[in-house]
């Protein structure tokens, strides 16, 4: 008798691998994106099964939801391009297939030899939890024990939005259509609800799965809905606010580190009495930054002074 949950895992694993193949082989580009979204959903389920709800949250919100929206807009922009079928020589395909099969075999062999469930760093984290200022281990790792990583990650987001604004400078975008009364009613109902959920995720991150990245991604979804429904239209005059939003997280994060370092400690060695306050401050500001940056990444092009897009109305 096979345990049903294990059978579920095996099916899920097979489905994920099959979806990965389907994403790369399906002819229709729209189907490719939908399959990728489904692939992300299934991976998030797999991570839930591996008792990693934080990662599942991040994957569902950022890796699948927002990435899916980004892919859909990009496909919309480049839809005119007939996918020029430049055939790859068969020899190249076979050689690469062999190479990848070899890599798969090697990795699988190494993986099967590696003992699972090694102690790892879990005991070290558990020992220091009391001093971290929060009650959830993943949040403690992200914002206290390995805060440098997280700071760099926020910087990467900042770099990405700078790059996107540079690349898209001077491009034209067709205006979004009006979605009608029902959508307006929906957004009046849904947007506040989503704001509450995002803030809840940020707040609950101190004790349970959730936190700045997941909360920020959910708040970014509000931005997406506003942009899509034309309830908010980016204006050139709003650029300073947007820039302030992009920089806020990095600035506060680095500022706190410098302040702590100024007190004769290591940069992220928060004083125990204020650890919780400092972490919450950083998380709050980083959440705002992430939300603004992700929404701006979705919108792409910087709002520029000369609106050339009006002629297509």
């Amino acid at each position, binding site marked *: 008798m096979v345990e049903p949950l294990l059978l579920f895992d095996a099916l899920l694993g097979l489905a994920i691998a099959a979806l990965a193949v389907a994403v790369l082989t399906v002819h229709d580009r729209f189907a490719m994106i939908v399959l990728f979204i489904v692939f992300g959903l299934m991976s998030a389920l797999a991570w839930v099964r591996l008792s990693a709800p934080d990662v599942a949250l991040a994957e569902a919100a950022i890796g699948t939801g927002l990435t899916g929206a980004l892919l859909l807009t990009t496909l919309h922009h480049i839809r005119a391009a007939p996918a020029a079928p430049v055939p790859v020589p068969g020899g190249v395909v076979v050689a690469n297939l062999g190479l990848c099969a070899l890599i798969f075999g090697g990795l699988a062999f190494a993986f099967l030899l590696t003992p699972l469930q090694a102690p790892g760093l879990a005991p070290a984290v558990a020992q220091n939890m009391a001093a971290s200022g929060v009650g959830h281990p993943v949040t403690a790792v992200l914002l206290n024990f390995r805060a440098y990583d997280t700071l760099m990650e926020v910087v990467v987001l900042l770099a990405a939005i700078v790059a996107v604004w540079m690349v898209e400078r001077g491009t034209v975008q067709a205006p979004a259509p009006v*979605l*009608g009364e*029902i*959508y307006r009613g*929906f957004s009046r*109902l*849904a947007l506040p609800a989503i704001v509450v*959920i995002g803030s809840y995720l940020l707040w609950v991150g101190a004790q349970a799965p959730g936190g700045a990245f997941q909360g920020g991604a959910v708040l970014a979804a509000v931005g997406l809905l506003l942009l899509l429904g034309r309830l908010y239209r980016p204006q050139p005059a709003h650029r300073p606010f947007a820039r302030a939003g992009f920089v806020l997280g990095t600035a506060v994060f680095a500022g706190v580190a410098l302040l702590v370092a100024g007190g004769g400690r290591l940069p992220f060695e928060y004083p125990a009495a204020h650890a919780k306050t400092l972490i919450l401050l950083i998380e709050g500001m980083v959440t705002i930054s992430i939300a603004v940056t992700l929404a701006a990444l979705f919108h792409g092009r910087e709002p520029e002074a000369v609106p050339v897009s009006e002629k297509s109305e």
Partner: protein
Amino acid sequence: MLLDLLALALIAVGAFFFVAGTIGLLRFPDTLCRLHALTKADGLGLGLTCLGVALLAGTAGEVVRIVLIWFFVATSSAVCGHLIARHVRRAANAGGR
């Protein structure tokens, strides 16, 4: 015990509706029929599942979150169903002209 059985039955019926929705999606002839099959199925299926899981829930907080999930999925799937139907109709009109 009785409550557990009731919850299990509700969840099982919910799953049945999901299966029915998938079959509708595969077998119905055109987009609007498929839309119809799907919105009914996922609305009912998820509603029953939510009810069943809520019966098994341990704390009031969990029940609140389950109700919130049900409410959100119900509104968003209704609105999205409407938007997709509108899009399909407009596309058909544009094609007919």
